[in-house]
């Protein structure tokens, strides 16, 4: 009833191949976009943006990135936290002006980049680092690759803690985002308007999602999936594993770098690498795509929403409604989130995205299943 295909005629290949071929689906997508872009900025306050929307949008980008690598290309990675750190520190260096030293003397200093381009540079630099750490994937697979990327995680965190150039020689090792704007609208720093920060992140999230969606259903995505399903067979039918794996690492790291840059500059404003980009971050993003659904862009959003919003929701219900002690609620959170992860893995191994797909199939036939 809700997903009527009857009367929805498609007369060109372009129409047939669009992301949302069913008219109702397409309008729902436009409606969500409309609400997100036009309505939400007018109604949000500091709390919604800083506690719910920004982490959701930023983690969604990271989840999309990791999903390309793990879900589409089948290369397990535990280096997400480290790659986010690369994005964050690159963004910081570019927004404060990269200084190049040689033999103890300042050789030259790049001008400060605009925050928009700093974030992009964060993505670009992370893509390069990602390719570098993706090289072992040509030789090793599965668990062994996971361990190799784990090494990247620890190495990168160590590097940013150890080399003081990355944090501009500050005494504490923290990096703090100075105030930056685009066309006079502040985007970083404490006086940012909630709608500005939200729209800035939303722009990156939508752009990344659209790019990812189109890449994964195009030639490159098919190559990735061929490698994922059976790499030897893929090689025999003419997929170059070197290119396919390294592009997957590159694109995935690009998105993760952008999310790291936004995470530091717009969301937190000050980070410390060990605390913000530790191994727990890698696991968090991995859980997001496992719960949301491997190999699904919608799944990345669903997983990010699930793991960002559920703890906040539980806290609100437990502490503010029932007035339970905060430590009990914090422990309950761990129990409930952990329990739900297990339930999902058993009941629906393909994640929330699969639930959504099944629901859509049901709705197509409802109320007259044949």
């Amino acid at each position: 009833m809700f997903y009527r295909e009857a009367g929805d005629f498609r007369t060109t290949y372009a129409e047939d191949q669009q992301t949302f071929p069913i008219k109702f689906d397409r309008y729902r997508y436009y409606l969500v976009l409309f609400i997100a872009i036009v309505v939400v900025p007018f109604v949000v306050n500091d709390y919604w943006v800083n506690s719910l929307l920004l982490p959701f949008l930023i983690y969604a980008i990271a989840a999309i990135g990791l999903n390309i690598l793990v879900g589409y290309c089948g290369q397990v990675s535990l280096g997400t936290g480290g790659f986010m750190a690369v994005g964050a520190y690159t963004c910081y260096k570019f927004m404060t002006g990269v200084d190049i030293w040689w033999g103890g003397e300042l050789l030259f200093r790049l001008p400060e980049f605009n925050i928009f381009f700093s974030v992009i540079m964060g993505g670009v630099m992370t893509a390069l680092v990602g390719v570098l750490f993706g090289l072992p994937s040509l030789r090793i697979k599965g668990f062994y690759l996971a361990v190799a990327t784990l090494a990247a995680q620890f190495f990168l965190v160590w590097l940013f803690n150890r080399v003081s150039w990355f944090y501009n020689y500050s005494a504490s090792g923290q990096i703090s985002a100075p105030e930056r704007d685009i066309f006079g609208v502040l985007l970083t720093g404490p006086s940012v308007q909630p709608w500005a920060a939200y729209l800035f992140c939303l722009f990156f999230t939508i752009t990344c999602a659209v790019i990812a969606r189109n890449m994964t259903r195009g030639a490159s995505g098919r190559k990735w999936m061929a490698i994922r399903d059976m790499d030897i067979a893929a090689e025999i039918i003419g997929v170059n594993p070197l290119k396919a794996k390294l592009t997957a690492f590159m694109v995935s790291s690009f998105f993760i770098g952008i999310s790291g840059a936004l995470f530091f500059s717009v969301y937190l404003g000050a980070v410390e690498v060990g605390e913000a980009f530790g191994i727990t971050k890698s696991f968090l993003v991995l859980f997001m795509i496992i719960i949301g659904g491997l190999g699904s862009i919608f799944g990345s959003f669903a997983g990010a929403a699930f793991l960002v919003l559920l703890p906040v929701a539980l806290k609100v219900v437990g502490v503010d409604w029932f007035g339970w002690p905060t430590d009990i609620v914090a422990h309950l959170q761990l129990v409930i989130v952990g329990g739900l992860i297990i339930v999902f893995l058993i009941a629906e191994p393909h994640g929330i995205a699969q639930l959504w797909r099944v629901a859509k199939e049901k709705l197509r036939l409802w109320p007259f299943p044949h």
Partner: protein
Amino acid sequence: MKYKLGTMAVAAMMAASPVMADLVFPSLSYRTGPYAAGGIPFADGYADYFTMLNARDGGIGGVMTKVIECETGYNTEKGVECYESTKGEGSLVYQPLSTGITYQLIPKTTADNIPMHTMGYGRTSAANGDVFSHTFNYPANYWNGASGAINYLLGENGGSLEGKKIALVYHNSAYGKEPIRTLQELSKKHGFEFKEVPVDHPGQEQKSQWLQIRRDKPDYVIMYGWGVMNQVAIQEAANIRFPMENFIGVWWSGSENDVLAAGDAANGYKALTFHGVGSDFPVFDDIKTHVTDAGNAAGAGDQIGTVLYNRGMYAAMLAAEAVKTAQEIHGVADINAAQMRDGMEALEITEEKMAALGLPNFGPSFKVSCQNHGGDGLVGVTQWDASSKTWSLISDFAPSDMDVIGPLIEEDSAAYAAENNIESNC
């Protein structure tokens, strides 16, 4: 999408119920995670003191107090969430008990015009009130601590540390890195050799660090640790038979939790402090009568008199005194955050005031001013007695080397002011 909308609805309902008529003190506590052992007693002390004020005096100046707890787990992201969810409730002062969260909140609280008190932690250069208008770190900060430890060692060595080796075992984070600059300057001044030994979060594995210390044989070890790292370090020090009386922790590495695990081996371990130890103060009788015996204790009620409980209680006491000062300045009982800031800036703690509050000789007397948000930085040394399981103060609250610290504070705060285009406040 479904989950998102659902949670939004929940958040909207929550945001619609602020209660404004109380003096609200948000407590960004952590009762879970690897730092809970330190977070629990501090949060209990903080909450119990306000409960006691409500029960005994009917609040402060006739207005009841209210503590809102929010669990951060020592995690900066949750800290931001806690800040955003409590700042609309009329919060007067933030005390995040985490250097990482402090760095997040310094610009935010300044923009929102809410003061923040980081007692003995946070960004040390916030002592310069000229630059950091809304951040206070009286009565002592990390650099006072580093200098206090060196001064104490100077006293033990007849005024000279020439040729001595001093190692710093530190939590490899913003917190642990804070004293390095000061110790480097002091090593130049006093001619001792200074070594850095970083320990990564959470610090459960320190074998290699202590092997390094065994090899280098430093004369003294100073520790800037927190949470489980402290216990492990003291145990490891005992394992390599490092003499405990030459091992000095900062005030965050000097609670009962840290030394009890090592048993008798921890006997003689020293720690810095900026307030008194033990439960031998009249105020604790009031807390017992009005809070624990009445069944209103924030925690299990078993922490009274422990180092960190005392510190939380001390933090609450200083906040309450700042409220009284603000009430006098502005002539209103139900003050807001901006008035609270003025109260903190005009705070003066004298010996008579402390005695009247039931805390004679509990802490040093000090005075806050517009320029000086850090107090006088007096630091004492305590020592652990493993047989009686007590800390005892073994030195007076002595001044630290402001000739070294002053210029460092000036330099660091000037850099912050330049980065953020801050004009002088005073």
